């Protein structure tokens, strides 16, 4: 338990500091390269200047994150996208009252983010380890089956349909590569993703050198995966060669 707390404080402080500094930089993008999420930018703007709004907004997501970490050990992306940046802003605003501080002061915001991150991550991680193990068994059985279905076949279908809706080039490339990927790797998603990227690049920029290099890399990748998974043996057997 003590080791869990210590580790949670460390990862929470590290990640909390970094995303908060990244969020401050977002208010100065694209001149400065920043990191975060567009929704964070919009939501920080929406409650700009009011510490209570920032706090309440983050609190709304805390309960959902708690449910998710208890059930599946997943903190959800909301911890770093929403709770930490908003609570860090609230903390800074309590101290300075200057509403431009959260948008400009990386040092102060970073410190607040590290504190909030450490507290929130530790709280969520320790809550879930207090849950009895019989409950965790039910959760993992139910979730395991649901995620198996999600990974195969729902995920391949979603990416496949997205590729078909994105135009002729993407649709053809994703169908060919998706079929190959399902056969060789057991899941069509990597093929569909590469098909979308290749198809869209052909559509927008034509058959240029970059696309050919990308396609060559994909062919080598697929061939080596097929070889290491022993697919060529099964292939020749199936066609009685």
């Amino acid at each position, binding site marked *: 338990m003590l080791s869990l707390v210590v*580790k949670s404080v460390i990862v929470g402080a590290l990640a909390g500091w*970094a995303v908060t500094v990244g969020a401050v930089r977002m208010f100065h993008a694209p001149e*400065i390269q920043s990191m975060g999420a567009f929704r964070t930018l919009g939501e920080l703007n929406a409650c700009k200047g009011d510490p209570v709004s920032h706090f309440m907004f983050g609190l709304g997501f805390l309960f*959902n994150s708690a449910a998710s970490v*208890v059930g599946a050990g997943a903190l959800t992306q909301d911890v770093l996208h929403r709770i930490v940046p908003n609570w860090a802003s609230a903390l800074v605003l309590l101290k300075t009252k200057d509403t431009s501080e959260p948008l400009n002061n990386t040092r102060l915001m970073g410190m607040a983010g590290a504190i909030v991150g450490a507290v929130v991550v530790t709280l969520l991680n320790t809550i879930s*380890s207090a849950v009895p193990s019989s409950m965790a068994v*039910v*959760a993992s059985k139910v979730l395991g089956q649901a995620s198996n279905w999600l990974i195969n076949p729902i*995920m391949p279908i979603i990416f496949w349909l997205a590729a078909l809706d994105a135009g002729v080039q993407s649709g053809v490339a994703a169908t060919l590569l998706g079929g190959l990927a399902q056969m060789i790797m057991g899941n069509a998603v*990597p093929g569909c993703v590469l098909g979308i990227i290749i198809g869209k690049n052909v559509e927008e920029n034509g058959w240029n050198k970059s696309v050919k290099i990308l396609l060559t890399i994909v062919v080598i990748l697929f061939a080596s995966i097929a070889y290491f998974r022993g697919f060529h043996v099964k292939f020749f057997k199936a066609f009685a060669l």
Partner: protein
Amino acid sequence: MHKSFLMTDLAFPLIVAVACAGIMGGTSLFLTNRVGAFNEIFVVQMLSNGLQTGDYAAAASFAAGFLIARVLEGPLVGVLDIGGSLMTGVGIGIPALLIASGYKGLIENFTTAVLFGALAGLVVGLVILLVRKSMPQGLSAAGTDVMMGAGNAMGRYLGPLIIISAISYSIPAGIGAFLGAALFYYLKKPIPGGAILGAMILGTIFPVK
């Protein structure tokens, strides 16, 4: 006006490195304590599935796809999406690749996981600055919007899937799942959380014989 070091280009790879150190530490905690992964339920479950079946193709390819797409897009728009690139790409994809190649210890050990995360983040940050300085001609971030749309649509499927799975597990768990999901939907919260909590509570009170 005084410009702080943390606002400079040079600081960017360092900030990404610190973020990845924390996120990779979270993944390490997930491997050892089954808590603390900085990601959505369905992404974390892909890694869990790999741990159970030994097949990491889904987790690794899903996450690597997001990492590549986001690293191409980040310098173009000036905002690197940390959800796709760092939490999913670095936090789930790289561990999946490492474990599949037999280096599970590297991520299970908290210290090496944090150090390795920092290193991975440093590389990602430097690559983004390089791409930003010299956007390669003729290869654009085309297609990333299609991928992101598909990726985000996936999360929506999880709620109904959990309810269907809970019903096939046991009747009490199933009832708990759909009541919990309905309650969460009414309260304007994502329904997977409610479905799991409901299934866990009723499924534990009335266990499968």
